[in-house]
């Protein structure tokens, strides 16, 4: 994993296309790697990440200034650990505007962070255009387009640089992994008892694909540093 602590921004311009699932998998991956991530869920008041990571998640109302302080001041006030920010679609433009106005990327880099955006490119072509806009506004150290096979994606193939694919999961897995007591980390560590045998291979393949991609983040960041 990246040697600089990460600020991973998980976002998309569309609802219900797997952002929270992606953020959740990333947090579990970071925990598996021995990191100590903190989650900022901008989906106030309904954000689900707190259910999965109680004690390391703040549910934030980003429309209000104290919420913005909760995000940016928290991160800069306690550098040295990873942060995962889950940005729901209705907050995306406000989030981008605040990042730009506050010149947060530069401040984060100065504090030693690498800023990575994981953007789920949805099926409509406008989603691809929105992804390009967001990359231009946020100017992260690494921008990773993500295709979720379950909802489809306008992401063309091939694409230069790192991309992630969320494999299609069996619909029968939804209530199982949606349960707040289910943990991808526990499943990866070998406790597969909560998942019926016929569904395990699909879930393993899903996690294998994503985690393989997460492991590419550090080399990609090093490469982009060299290039710059």
């Amino acid at each position: 994993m990246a040697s600089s602590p990460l600020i991973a921004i998980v976002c998309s311009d569309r609802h219900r296309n797997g952002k929270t699932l992606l953020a959740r998998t990333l947090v579990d991956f970071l925990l598996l790697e021995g990191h100590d991530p903190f989650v900022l869920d901008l989906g106030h008041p309904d954000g689900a990440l707190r259910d999965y990571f109680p004690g390391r998640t703040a549910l934030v109302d980003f429309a209000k200034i104290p919420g913005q302080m909760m995000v940016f001041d928290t991160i800069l006030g306690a550098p040295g650990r990873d942060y995962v920010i889950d940005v729901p679609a209705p907050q995306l433009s406000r989030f981008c505007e605040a990042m730009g106005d506050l010149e947060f990327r530069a401040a984060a880099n100065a504090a030693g962070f690498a800023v990575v955006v994981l953007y789920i490119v949805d099926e409509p072509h406008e989603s691809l255009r929105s992804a390009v806009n967001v990359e231009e506004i946020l100017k992260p150290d690494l921008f990773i387009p993500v295709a979720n096979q379950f909802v489809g994606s306008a992401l063309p193939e091939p694409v230069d640089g790192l991309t992630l694919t969320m494999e299609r999961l069996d619909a029968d897995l939804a209530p199982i992994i949606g349960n707040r007591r289910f943990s991808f980390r526990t499943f990866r560590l070998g406790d597969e008892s909560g998942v019926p045998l016929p569904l395990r291979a699909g879930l393993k393949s899903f996690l294998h694909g994503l985690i393989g991609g997460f492991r590419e983040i550090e080399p990609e960041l090093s490469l982009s540093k060299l290039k710059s």
Partner: protein
Amino acid sequence: MKPTLILVGADKGGVGKTTISRTLLDFFARKNVLTRAFDTENPRGSLKRFYPTITEIVDLENVAHQMKILDTLETANVPVTLVDLKAGGLSYALDIFERIGVLEAARSGQFTLGLFHIIGSSIASLDEIGEISRYLGGLEYILTRNFINETNFFEWDEETSRKYFANIPNSHEIDIPKLNEMAYEQVDVAGVTFKDFIDNRNADGQAGKFSFVLRGYVRKWCSEIDQEFSRVKLIQDILSGGRPQSKS
């Protein structure tokens, strides 16, 4: 270069005169232009709280204090002198300055005189312009709409502008944009300049612990104000140090 005397005032209270004075002093500090300030809110003077080293509290009715401001314009070796006129003191100050020859001295070119006239969100504020217009010949007059606490302002259109400005030469209009209340409050509580707040410095020069977010909002607000001030000829002349400005 001729010294510049800037008056900041209004005949209505609570329109943000001291805030505008602070933004001007901050602007000049960011541009490395030396300033000194006089606060006529005698005996309290809230401007002095933010700029203790360059601000003196004075009483404009006191002749010795008038001398302190006006007789030292040349000798102070500071290009900009700012006077923050107390609430309701604009007409009074202009009247005194007319009677003792200050306005005439400015008209004859001994120094440059600018007036930032702060108006509130009600159109009734504009009536003040008629009341002071007889003093404004030879001055740089800057009508300043202060939105800092307000989101709703009276409608400003060409007809309104013509009605009030037809007889005022050298007039400009600028807008002071709204600043997020929480950011405004925190700067006030800290008792520091906007510049120090942005730079995360306490009043004693030590590193502060101000919110990154609130500092960012103040920085953005200041850059919007910089753009407004940069449109004003009086300020352009001060920044150019009296040299002709490049047209490039």
